[in-house]
Each structure stands twice: as structure tokens, then as C-alpha cells.
């Protein structure tokens, strides 16, 4: 895939990762204590869930930072050059293309001429052969 499309895909990936991170955290976060007046929420003991949330958040934030680093790397790999430089190069290439095209045409014409001559010669030679070998 060309690099601009890769960059666009990477931007979309970063957006998706951020979305997933916040969504998962909001869905899985344990209840939080609002004020010292309210009683402590009942300590339900699926302790593996709390551990999971901590690990997940670490993993997801690592993935986010990783995606951002990849974006930076792709940006560094962009082969950019000025528009004028490109237009100049295109004009040069067009001129060279014309010249090479003319030479190709010339060679082609000369080759076709030679082909015709050789065919003529061949016809004459064949005729002479036929005339020499008269059936008797």
C-alpha cells in the first residue's frame, strides 16, 4: 500500500485504539468512592477483574503509544520534494522521451527498409534458383 494510505490507516488505527481504551476502561472500571459519608461499596471479590483492569489499561496505553511511534516513523519515511522540482523533472523527462522516441522511429524506419530490401533480394534469388533449375 502506498505510504499516504498507510499513514491514513495509521491515523484511523490510533483513533480506534483510543476509542477502545476509553470504552474498555469505562466498562470494566470498579466502582469508585464518591465521599467519605457514603458507605464503602460492598467489596465484591472477583479480584482477578481488578488485576485485569490494571493490566489491560497498561497494555492498551502501550499499544496507543506504539501506534503513535509508528505514525512518526511513517512520517519520517515520506519521500517529499517541492512541487517545482517535480514539475522541472517532468519537463526534463518529457523532452528526453521525445528525443528517444524520435531515435526509435528512425531506427524502426531503417530496419523496415532493410527488411524490404532483404525480402526483394530473397525473391530474386528464389526466382533465379527456379530459372536455373529448369525441369527437362
Amino acid at each position, binding site marked *: 500500500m502506498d505510504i499516504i494510505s498507510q499513514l491514513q490507516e495509521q491515523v484511523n488505527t490510533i483513533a480506534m485504539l*483510543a476509542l477502545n481504551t*476509553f470504552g474498555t476502561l469505562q466498562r470494566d472500571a470498579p466502582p469508585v468512592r464518591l465521599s467519605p459519608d457514603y458507605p464503602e461499596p460492598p467489596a465484591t471479590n472477583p479480584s482477578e477483574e481488578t488485576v485485569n483492569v490494571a493490566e489491560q489499561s497498561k497494555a492498551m496505553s502501550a499499544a*496507543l503509544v506504539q501506534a503513535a511511534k509508528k505514525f*512518526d516513523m511513517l512520517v*519520517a519515511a515520506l519521500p*517529499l520534494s517541492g*512541487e517545482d522540482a517535480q514539475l522541472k523533472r517532468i519537463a526534463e523527462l*518529457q523532452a528526453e522521451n521525445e528525443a528517444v522516441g524520435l531515435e526509435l522511429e528512425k531506427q524502426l524506419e531503417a530496419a523496415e527498409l532493410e527488411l524490404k530490401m532483404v525480402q526483394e533480394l530473397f525473391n530474386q534469388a528464389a526466382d533465379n534458383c527456379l530459372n536455373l533449375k529448369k525441369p527437362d
Partner: protein
Amino acid sequence: MTTATSSSYPPPPPYYRLYKDYERDPASAPDPPPPIQGAFPLFGATYTTDVVLPTLEDQGVRQLYPKGPNIDIKKELRSLNRELQLHILELADILVERPSQYARKVEDISLIFKNMHHLLNSLRPHQARATLIHILERQIQRRKQAVEDIKKRREEARRLLKESLQIVDGQLR
């Protein structure tokens, strides 16, 4: 009910009558109209033939990176990336401290994304020119190769002719 359905679609345009004698006399029919240039309406919507990327202001989106003819796109993309990371972090912080004020932050993040995509889209004409350069270079290379091939074959043919001439001469003597 049938009148309603029959009048809701317009009839096809009546141009077919102009081509009644086309088989006998092709010149009697009018030429097709030339291709349209510029803007044209189609089924109530306006379309345009010269395709240009609309600026962010046209879409009502604030432009975060500096305007002007020559900007360093790589630098702008990198700084937008940093801004994005910072905003995501701030969003996480807001969700912890002041959860009801998330909307503004989310809007900011989407603004940054729109700017990034617009910058990337503005690179496409550059890519098109680079593709053109690549195509021209390949074509020049192929043409040069063809010239070399033709020269080689001509040489070969001339050599064969000379050889056969020598053989024929040898046989005559």
C-alpha cells in the same frame, strides 16, 4: 393511485426522434453535445468537473497548522501527533476529575483528526506527480531498450547477409 405513480417519474428525453433516419443517412442526425466543463446540476445537486480538495474552512473546520504556500508537512504532522497524544491524556484526566466536561475535549480530539486527514489528502497531488515521473522514466527505459534491440538485430541481419554473399561468391568461383 396509478396517476400518482405514473407522474412521479419524468418521461425519457425525446431526443430519440431526431435519429429516426440515422440508418439511411447518418449525417441527418445532430452531433452529441460536447462534454460539460465547470459546474453542472444533476438531480438537484451541483457537481463540478475540476476536482480540487476543498480547504478546511470550506468545510467549517478550524485549521490548526499554519497556512501559507510552503509548510513543512512532516513537521506539522509530527506536531499534530504530539498534540493528539496530549489531548488523549487530558481526556483520560478529565474523565477522572470532571467527567461531565468530556464533550469539549472529544471535540478537540476530532478536530485534530480532521486536520491530520486533510494534511494527508493534500499530499495526494504530489503523489500523482511522482507516479507520472515514475511512468515516464519506465517508458524512456523501455524505448532505449527497444532501440538497442533493433540495432542488434540489424547488425545480425547484415552479418548474415555478408556471410551468405561470401558463400554464394565462393560457390560461383
